[in-house]
């Protein structure tokens, strides 16, 4: 029985989807079982605090310092509990990190509560000034003033396009209708992006508060949260939060007895990427096939069920309570003049500190990749970073001094996007990368517009032929022409931005394309059809290992004699290279 703890210690297990996937549930169960033996130790759970590469983890405060006990396993729990206060001993077997150090370079507004509060406890949120903004607004700010405030803050849509949130609200406010709607777009779908999920899982009331304020501002009595069904935890926590908010009269017919009535309905989407597009999203909520339609009319005048509708993304709405609480000026003081505030990014790919970060706009890519991100996670250099997912673009390492704001990134051909940031290293083939994103777009296109439906398919086919060494310069020209026209002749942003990964890789890594086309070669070795494995007869010692490990038996040679790879059957799995003890196998 350990009773040496001077005061009670609270251990919070990170139970976001990422933590749970890494094994947080077992950690929590173990803690629950063991903690009975300790006095002064309490346990709770929180959600993702952004340090995905450290999951599963426990956050705790000891001697005034917030510590992260990282990369835990259930077996470590008894030891951890025994030695909680002995940092030195603890550190000998558990990875202990000071949270402040990990947060260096970040400025958290949207994520301020994530990983700190228990998302299922309304009280936790209230203790962090939750719903203060809502009370403020309902008590003494007119809808027009709210909108003016948001306009003044300079907040721009965080879903990708970067349109002024205040102006958008104003349009919806001014639209004449008995019935209006607000929708929270939680259809996050870019590969490698998980900002919105983390916010919904970690601080659901914040999203709800933002949505209610938005409803109040534009004059809507009903709000929808359109969230993909692939986010069950987020949906579960939002549901609980909505129930709790109703019970506390934060939602309902007469919110906080102000006379303003508002209800929220969660609409689960089936996970079509295109449903992140406003008009497709509306169609989906209405129960129709998720296909975009022509704008105008914009949803602000004719949206859900033909009524004025305002749609904001999760992160945009999560900014609202902070802006109301702290004032528009505090917000606009952050970031740059044209892109004020902060932005949440998910760092993924070949980067050491993969996870969720929130930075002030105007920080350089270099500071993110090498500072917060810690650089490459492999022994190869970071070659480029892909921003904005399949709608975004690649920025090469030479341009890492580019600042992260809407205009600067746009000028590189990439976009801020919703915040996916994927680092790639020198082992990544840029043609293959472009192919990957195009493949994604191809399977997510709704099939309405000619250029998106057939054009992206033809682009993908050309890229595929390139990666197989079956293309030529004429096809490269076709690829460019297609990319150009798809970008201007599609209805929605999915189609319009579909060529971006190809355009930017062509702009910055043209030599890799030319290598595939002219030399039928892929230097990175990613494009298997172009790789030839050969055995250096001089080096081969005839150990037969390669032949034994070849899954298709295409290596011949007898003991102590040089071996030979018959190319016809080779599937380029690379086993031979891996098992050769003398490095006689090489890729051409």
């Amino acid at each position, binding site marked *: 029985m350990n009773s040496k703890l001077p005061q009670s210690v609270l251990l919070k297990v990170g139970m976001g989807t990422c933590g749970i996937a890494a094994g947080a549930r077992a950690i929590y169960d173990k803690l629950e079982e063991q903690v009975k033996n300790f006095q002064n130790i309490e346990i709770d759970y929180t959600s993702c605090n952004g340090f995905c590469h450290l999951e599963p983890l426990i956050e705790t405060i000891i001697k005034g310092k917030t510590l992260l006990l990282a990369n835990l396993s259930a077996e470590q729990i008894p030891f951890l509990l025994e030695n909680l206060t002995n940092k030195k001993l603890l550190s000998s077997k558990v990875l202990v990190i000071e949270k402040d150090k990990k947060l260096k370079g970040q400025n958290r507004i949207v994520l301020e509560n994530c990983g700190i509060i228990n998302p299922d406890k309304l009280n936790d949120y209230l203790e962090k000034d939750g719903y203060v903004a809502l009370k403020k607004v309902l008590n003494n700010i007119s809808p027009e003033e709210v909108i003016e405030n948001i306009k003044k803050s300079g907040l721009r849509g965080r879903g990708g396009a970067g349109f002024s949130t205040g102006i958008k609200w104003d349009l919806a406010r001014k639209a004449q209708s008995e019935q209006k709607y607000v929708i929270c777009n939680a259809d996050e779908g870019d590969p490698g992006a998980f900002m919105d999920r983390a916010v919904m899982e970690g601080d659901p009331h914040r999203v709800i508060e933002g949505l209610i304020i938005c409803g109040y501002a534009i004059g809507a009595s009903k709000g929808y949260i359109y969230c993909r069904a692939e986010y069950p935890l987020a949906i579960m926590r939002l549901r609980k939060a909505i129930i709790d908010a109703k019970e506390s009269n934060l939602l309902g017919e007469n919110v906080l007895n102000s006379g303003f009535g508002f209800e929220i309905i969660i609409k689960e989407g089936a996970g079509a990427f295109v449903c992140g597009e406003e008009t497709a999203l509306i169609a989906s909520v209405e129960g129709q096939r998720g296909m975009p339609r022509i704008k105008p009319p914009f949803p602000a005048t004719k949206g859900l069920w033909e009524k004025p509708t305002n749609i904001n993304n999760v992160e945009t709405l999560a900014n609202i309570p902070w802006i109301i609480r702290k004032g528009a000026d505090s917000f606009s003081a952050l970031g740059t003049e044209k892109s004020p505030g902060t932005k949440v990014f998910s760092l993924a790919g070949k980067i050491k500190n993969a996870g969720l970060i929130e930075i002030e706009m105007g920080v350089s890519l270099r500071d993110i990749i090498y500072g917060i991100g810690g650089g490459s996670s492999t022994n190869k250099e970071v070659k480029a970073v892909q921003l904005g997912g399949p709608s975004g673009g690649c920025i090469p390492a030479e341009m890492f001094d580019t600042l992260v704001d809407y205009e600067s990134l746009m000028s590189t051909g990439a976009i801020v996007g919703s915040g996916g940031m994927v680092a790639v290293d020198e082992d990544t083939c840029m043609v293959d990368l472009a192919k990957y994103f195009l493949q994604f777009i191809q399977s997510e296109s709704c*099939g*309405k*517009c000619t*250029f998106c439906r*057939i054009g992206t*398919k*033809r682009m993908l086919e050309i890229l595929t032929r390139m990666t197989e060494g079956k293309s030529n310069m004429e096809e490269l020209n076709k690829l460019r022409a297609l990319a150009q*026209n798809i970008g201007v002749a599609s209805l929605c942003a999915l189609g319009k931005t579909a060529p971006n990964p190809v355009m930017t890789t062509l702009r910055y890594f043209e030599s890799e394309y030319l290598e595939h086309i002219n030399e039928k070669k892929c230097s990175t070795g990613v494009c298997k059809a172009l790789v030839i494995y050969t055995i250096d007869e001089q080096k081969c010692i005839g150990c037969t290992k390669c032949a034994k490990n070849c899954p298709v038996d295409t290596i011949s040679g007898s003991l102590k004699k040089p071996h030979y790879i018959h190319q016809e059957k080779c599937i380029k799995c690379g086993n031979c290279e891996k098992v050769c003890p003398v490095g006689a196998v090489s890729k051409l």
Partner: protein
Amino acid sequence: MSRVILNSKEYFFNEGQTILSVCAENDIYIPTLCHVKELAPYGSCFVCVVEIKNGRAGIVPSCSTACSDGMIVETDNERVKGIRKMALELLMSDHFGDCLAPCMVEGCPANINIQGFLALEGEGKYQEAAKLIRQKAPIPNILGRVCPAPCEKVCRRNRVDEPISIRIQKRYISDKEIEQGGPFLPAKASDTGKVVSIVGAGPAGMTASYFLALSGHRVKVYEAHPKHGGMTRYGIPYYRLPEDIIDKELDAIIAQLGVEILYNTKVGKDISFEELMESSDAVLLANGAQISSSMDIPGENSSLVVPAVKYLELVAKHTPREIGNETVVVGGGHTAMDAARTAVRMGVKTTILYRRSEEEMPGKDEVAEAIEEGVEFQYLSAPVKCEEVKNKLKVTCIKMELSQPDASGRRSPIPVKGSEYELQVDTMIMAIGQRVDSSFMPLDILGKRGIPEIDKSNMQTRNEKVFAAGDCVTGPDLVVTAVAAGRKAAFAIDNYLMKAVAFGEKKLFSSVTGELCELPEVMFATYEKKSRMIIPHISIEERKQGFNVIELPASDEQLKYEAERCLLCGCVEVNDCKLKEYSELYDVDTKMFQGESREYEKDSNDEVVLETDKCINCASCIRIAEANDNYKLLGLTGRGFSSRVKPPFNGEMKEVDCLACDEIVNNCPTAGIRKGNKKVEYS
């Protein structure tokens, strides 16, 4: 009222009016595929794009973009046209169908509407059928007797049982027309006063005469022989093509269209080329390839060695040359066959000497018939020397073997060393090819090979006033190829005379489903097998005895039977297809983008056919149905590239209550949804 600038001109518009509607009101052309006038804009095809040059500048779909005051729009600039063209090329790359039947597009060099004339023939409308053929080829009867019918090789019926007997139907149709008092040629346009001189009254020259005369030009043909027809008369024996047919068909052109022919007039001898040039506004060279090629072997100048062309010509002129009791014909082409079969008919023992094997012979049917008539064949053999010995000819031959196929797949013969052998004959007939007589032509229009060099798109030589067509450009080729060339030349000459620029004929536009052998089995599975009509013919005995025409007339029932075997490969919506119309207009290359595509897929109920393989996903059918409160008719299934218009829940047409209302069918921009009983009108 607000104003908008369309193509630099100012127009007024009402609030909310789209660019497309303002353009429509002012006759500014904008193509549309997915737009349905009465419905809200859909904006999926992107064929109606225009470019806004100010404000929120850029490419927009005109169907759904409202005009705003002071907006500057260009509806037809290069960028706009390029995007429209690409949209169409993308749609075509995922459109599985044949606008026109393969026999017409790939098979027939003259692009005769075969499906069309067969349909009319089947209905007994022989005059209409002949008229349809004449749109592309003015000598249906000649072609119907001599054409080796490349069309039949690509006939889709090959995949069911046997190809339609296309070739002879042209003759039968024309025979019927002649019985009814024909040939009936169309009326010609009023006189243009322009004079076109044509050298040669063969198929190329006479075809060009026909089309030029129809256009109102004054045509003067210079013919070295005493009669017209060129090689069809002097190269093809009467048992295949009788004199009276040539006369009937070509005399009609002279009589009905006023074409003037100067016989026995050899240009370069009886009249100089310069005189021709001076007396005409344009000149067409169509003098064929009439000089027999030589073999370059010792002794070939002997009087016992006879050029096939010369031999056939003399027979045709009823002044045959004596060739003894036994002859050997060297060569394996159509001329060799004609010479051999003529010789047999003259009672001469005849052997064909061919340096390749039977497999490489061009005319299979002809070989079979020649064998029936008693012609003997020695394959893989060629003469190397001739010697006159006591009024006889000693021909030394050598055996050949074939090389491995070269890049073009052709196997060339190689002499086998020491395999020489001798033949004793009375004469030897040389049929190894013909050359062009270009001696009268000015050097500046000749190419490297000493024959006229032309721009194939319009048959024009380097001298803009001089055109050339037929064998004199290509060397010996098919009659139907010469007909096609003559027509193309006439088209370009007409443009040259009337519009000062010799635009050539546009290449026939058609979506193509694929090569015969690549097509899926399911396309042919439902057809009942029906064997090809048997062409009535005279007995082998009768054949051997003289020059009676081998093929005999057939009954109306037989013609109807054969015509109805046609699978109607060409699309029934060919004349009502916007996709095709625009593709032609924007000069679409159907093969620009190749890759995965829709496959053969049709579904139907009693009233309507859903041709999913041709659908372009404009969803106009779905939208019209929904506008009529019918939500259970059709919908979109699948995503992206695989999305399809289908009955609900991927069901079948027979489950839905679709009566193919005119509104839906007429608004389909292609053959995606159509009435089951729709027929093409051929005219």
